[in-house]
């Protein structure tokens, strides 16, 4: 049996906005994602060239070498708009927060031997600075990129990196007894310790990239696939007994990584598949930045681990249709 509440029917004149209807077909209801994202960025009749970069308009397809006939092809498979993004992250974080409570209650970090704490401060906590660099890159792609389909998930990703930098910061504070000394030590390692210098150089080199899609490739296939993946997933053995509580406290990072990859892989695949030229350009960038990331990881992880990690990224790039 069904219960039917009687309502008055009002025949709508149209289902959605014109620019959305032209993409999905007249008379079809649009999703919230479609209304939030499709054709939102202005494309025409700009008034003034930016004082800080007069060779381009603020929104300009010429800011990257890759050419798309339509920048609304690389859509977000997660269909994030602001509401769904925030709700997803609030849920992910709630679970991470429970883990913090658990680890704190059981004193799982506090009870670790000092040598292990030092190891974590030197080998894990400095990664918060790498997240901060990644945050800058994703903000840069958001401001510099073309088309809301690709730029709006970038500000979400920037928010994610800030959030992860703060999760790692909290781990640092757990390890140093909430004094901040551990964070200082970790920053010193980031600035001066030989093992981190390749990684710091890599991220600094990306911070000055002008081609925003090259930056996207460098971040996704170099920084994310090689460096972050190794730091979070390649050190379990070295962390020993600490690896379990660390996995718990970085559950957000691991959820994020799966989520981000779904989107960034799809973007790279779609843009590379657009044309022979795009494929060649994106492949060259991928090759260059995976190699740079391998070099960067070598002092941190050793040549063999760095190579294995970079090869994993190369395999993935091939699956996305790139020639490496």
């Amino acid at each position: 049996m069904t219960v039917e509440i009687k309502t008055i029917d009002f025949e709508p004149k149209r289902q959605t906005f014109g620019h959305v209807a032209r993409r999905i077909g007249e008379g079809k209801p649009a999703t919230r994602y479609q209304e939030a994202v499709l054709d939102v960025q202005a494309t025409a009749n700009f008034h003034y060239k930016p004082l800080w970069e007069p060779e381009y308009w603020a929104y300009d397809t010429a800011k990257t070498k890759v050419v798309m006939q339509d920048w609304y092809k690389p859509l977000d498979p997660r269909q994030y708009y602001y509401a769904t993004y925030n709700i997803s992250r609030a849920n992910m974080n709630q679970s991470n927060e429970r883990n913090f409570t658990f680890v704190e209650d059981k004193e799982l970090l506090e009870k670790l031997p000092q040598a292990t704490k030092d190891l974590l401060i030197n080998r894990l906590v400095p990664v918060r600075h790498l997240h901060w660099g990644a945050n800058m890159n994703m903000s840069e792609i958001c401001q510099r990129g073309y088309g809301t389909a690709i730029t709006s998930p970038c500000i979400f990703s920037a928010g994610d990196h800030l959030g992860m930098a703060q999760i790692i910061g909290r781990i640092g504070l757990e390890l140093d007894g909430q004094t901040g000394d551990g964070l200082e030590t970790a920053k010193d390692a980031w600035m001066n310790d030989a093992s981190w210098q390749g990684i710091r150089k890599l991220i600094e080199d990306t911070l000055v990239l002008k081609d925003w899609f090259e930056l996207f490739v460098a971040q996704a296939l170099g920084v994310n696939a090689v460096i972050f993946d190794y730091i979070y997933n390649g050190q379990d053995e070295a962390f020993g007994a600490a690896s379990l509580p660390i996995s718990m406290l970085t559950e957000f990072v691991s959820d994020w990584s799966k989520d981000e990859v779904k989107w960034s892989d799809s973007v790279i695949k779609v843009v590379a598949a657009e044309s022979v030229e795009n494929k060649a350009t994106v492949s060259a960038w991928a090759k260059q930045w995976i190699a740079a990331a391998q070099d960067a990881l070598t002092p941190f992880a050793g040549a063999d681990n760095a190579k294995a990690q970079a090869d994993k990224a190369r395999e993935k790039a091939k699956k996305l249709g790139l020639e490496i």
Partner: protein
Amino acid sequence: MAVKKMGLKQKYAHLTRGLDWETSYQKMDDVFPYDQFEGIKITDWSKWEDPFRLTMDSYWKFQAEKERKLYAVIDAFAQNNGQLNVSDARYINVLKLFLTGVSPLEYQAHRGFAFTGRHMRGVGPRIAAQMQSLDELRHFQTQAHTISHYNKFFDGIAEFQHMHDRVWYLSVPKSFFDDARASGPFEFMIAIGFAFEYVLTNLLFVPFMSGAAYNGDMSTVTFGFSAQSDESRHMTLGIEVIKFLLEQHPDNLPIVQKWVDKWFWRGFKVLGLVAMMMDYMLPKKVMSWKEAWEIYFTEAGGSLFTDLERYGLKVPKYADVATEMAEHISHQNWAVFYQYTHAAAFHTWTPDKEHLDWLSEKYPNTFDKYYRPRWEMWAKMDEEGKRFYNMALPQLCQTCQIPMAYTEPGDPTQISFRCTEWNGEMYHFCSDGCKDIFDDEPEKYAQSWLPVHQIFQGNCGGPTVPDVLNWYRLNAGADNMDYVGSPDEQIWNSWKGKAPAEAAE
């Protein structure tokens, strides 16, 4: 023993300030290439006071909670056909103006704050700007989702994105934001963060949301309440920016003063659309534009600038002219749209007697003397079948891009004209304020994409009005012209006549 939780402030300091580092493999000036050319001197970024201390985990939590509630209301509104409860279908024209004129600016703000959130050298302001970038994306998207339901039934909404880039009066808000986006990061923060979000937000955001509340628009007002806490964060960022710049170096004062003067005037001209909305378009009035100006600019702005005096900052230049204009601007703007109703994507009407009496009461110094006779004459002409249309294309101000319909300070019977010769060409302005802005940066404002010039140059679909409307994707006969006789009126009357009868079945 569990570790004692830190206070939010202490935790925030640990989790943000320490993130940044002095780059050494690349020069800092290459990493931050845009924060020097404006001449602003920052001696110590660490002196920045965080205006709000939100870590990302709290941000996600608060914002997700607000979004869950907001979308529940938007869904309920659509399910229950909440559009039936608005005061009158004339009210929908306010939403048309908002979605075509204001929502795209929210999107522009999102991208602009992503720019400053990347390119200011200090970590504190960068994080605050990034959160504002996220918020502004939220505001664009929730506005589109809220008004989407109205779009299903009413005309003039569907092509808001296309129109924003093309339609003559929408180049006023568009050029305003393009101007800010084309400025350096510090000017952007003063233009949008301070002048727009702090000084003028109560004259933009608040009137639209109060208008929604007074006119039974439950979904828009719910958006308004939901965005309130975002807006107050944006205001605290705006005030912190200006204090920070002024405290950092005395050389910053003349630069900041120039920006405050410029952006006050730019903002004031854009707000003329809000003035007209409040005085003419809301079926149930909240207050007059003049009253709003007195409360939110003269009084609130007055105490703000008194507070800023200790830094040497003065009340914006021409604030007195703007205050005098508060007696006139709504009447002059609505008269422009009435004359050009055939080229507007919302409906116009002449005020009825009750409305005229309200305006007479609210504007005792000017309305009966200058404006009431005109509305009465136009109403009479309309009755006689001679409804007045202005078929000549208007001259536009080179800076604010508004048709030259404003009057001289001190003489409301004279149209105000100013001009400047630059690089062998003559440029025209509606006011001293707009002329000053041009004279200070002629290379910038000579570039303006002026809709009327563009039509004459053949860049807008063709030489005739129908050609241009077609190019605007303006559905003539539905989107434009007077409310009386429009499809909007028709559908509204059919609901109001029919709905109760059917419900009683």
